[in-house]
């Protein structure tokens, strides 16, 4: 039983799913979104909107959209308009349109049977439901890029041109696409792209002061008074800024630092707790461990990390890494080493615990070795290795 009081007042306010009522430094964008969708509160059946929100990780895209969604739903209800804001993370549904739409449908009709319908069929049912209930929907598609990747132009085109299939019927579904940048929209055909990109809200990275403001707001909500000194917030903001201005990272650091503080029965969260928190998030892998690898081992690891980053797969094969390694070697002006040598590198990295291997059962082509990255973020690894390789290149 813990006798020492906790530094937390309500740690759920640091949870990734918590949406604060105020969004420091995003009020302008929040007003902008409200403006874009204001017709929904005035002439809901006459218009449907398509807006894209872009911004790097931790720039508040999801929080902004969910806050906006919650506010507009309340306002619509107050005005007697039946409006649903449905937030779907496309990646959770492997970017499959029929699964995404099915999720949206079950928000309206929780008992609707889940079967393998075609996307068009689910869309039709969804619209039928909205028509019958005289309801409207803002469908927020988070990680929209994974839908584009999985389904390509046609699906997105159909989504953006819903009304053309429903002449003279009320407009029911507005779209809010959320993505890191517009790169993946390059894969769309011109007309879909132009329809989608007409209205884009771009969230810039937070600076140090903005991060400190955000963290201070959360501290006031989540921690007991006077338990988080100003320098701790400042240090956390610095670290979050180093992580490309990632507010989410800073908030998680605060939570972890609070946990370290509680574990040590401390009255306050100290900078040392933040430092411990950082090493618990980023590394399992120290810079010196990477330093100790030779140039080609580093290139090989970079190739592996690039593969994991690009494919988002948990496992890959040596031959895939070999291809990426060849590209990395070329980039750094090195002649690639032989396959046998790469196999040895894999063994070394596996012994060090940086990469891990798993041998699959007998297949048609015999046994094969799968490689995975156990506990380090691929993006972090790519970043660290690139810095190191550039330094050594000089």
């Amino acid at each position: 039983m813990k006798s020492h009081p906790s530094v937390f007042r309500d740690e759920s306010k640091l949870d990734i799913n918590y949406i604060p009522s105020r969004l420091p430094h995003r009020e302008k964008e929040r007003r902008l979104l409200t403006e874009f969708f204001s017709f929904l509160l005035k002439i809901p059946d006459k218009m449907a909107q398509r807006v894209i929100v872009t911004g790097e990780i931790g720039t508040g895209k999801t929080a902004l959209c969910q806050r906006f969604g919650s506010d507009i739903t309340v306002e619509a209800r107050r005005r007697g308009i039946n409006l649903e804001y449905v937030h779907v993370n496309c990646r959770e549904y492997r970017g499959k349109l029929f699964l995404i739409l099915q999720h949206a449908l079950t928000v309206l009709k929780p008992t609707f049977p889940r079967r393998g319908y075609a996307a068009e069929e689910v869309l039709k049912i969804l619209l039928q439901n909205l028509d019958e209930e005289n309801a409207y929907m803002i469908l927020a598609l988070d990680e929209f890029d994974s839908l584009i990747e999985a389904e390509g132009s046609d699906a997105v085109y159909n989504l953006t041109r819903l009304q053309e299939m429903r002449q003279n019927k009320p407009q029911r579904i507005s779209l809010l696409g959320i993505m890191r940048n517009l790169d993946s929209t390059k894969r769309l055909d011109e007309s879909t792209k132009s329809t989608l990109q007409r209205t884009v809200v771009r969230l810039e990275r937070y600076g140090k002061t903005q991060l400190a403001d955000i963290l201070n707001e959360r501290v006031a909500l989540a921690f007991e008074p006077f338990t988080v000194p100003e320098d701790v917030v400042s240090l956390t903001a610095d670290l979050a800024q180093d992580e490309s201005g990632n507010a989410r990272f800073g908030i998680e650091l605060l939570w972890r630092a609070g946990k370290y503080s509680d574990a040590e029965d401390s009255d306050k969260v100290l900078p040392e707790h933040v430092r411990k928190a950082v090493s618990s998030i980023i590394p399992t892998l120290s810079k010196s461990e990477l330093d100790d690898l030779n140039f080609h081992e580093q290139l090989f690891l970079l190739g592996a990390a690039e593969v994991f980053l690009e494919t988002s797969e948990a496992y890959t094969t040596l031959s895939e890494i070999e291809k990426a390694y060849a590209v990395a070697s070329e980039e750094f002006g090195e002649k690639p080493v032989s396959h046998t040598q790469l196999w040895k590198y894999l063994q070394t990295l596996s012994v060090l615990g940086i990469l891990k291997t798993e041998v699959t059962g007998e297949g048609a082509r015999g046994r094969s070795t799968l490689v995975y990255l156990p506990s380090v973020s691929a993006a972090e690894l790519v970043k660290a290795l690139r810095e190191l390789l550039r330094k050594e290149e000089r």
Partner: protein
Amino acid sequence: MHMELEDVFSSKPRMKILKLVARLGELNISDISRRIGLNFSTTSRHLQLLEAEGILQQRTYGRIRMYRFSQVSAKSKVVKELVEVWEASNKKELAGIGREKK
């Protein structure tokens, strides 16, 4: 030709269906039959009867047929209310017994 009140309500499966639909809102036949533990065709027969009496209403979404309380009939309104009041009162009674035991 409509059935007598006692004939409609004398069936245990029909009462189970009404309780289920009152609780969950709108369900398809397979879901109802699974939840009340009866086969598809028997469940379907009961549902048709309740629909013919104007208590339930069927809606079709593509290949899916879903049943819910009829939105237009007065009968449906009172039956739904009866089931809801009955269930809520039983729940209260159960909670009371739980408190006494503590």
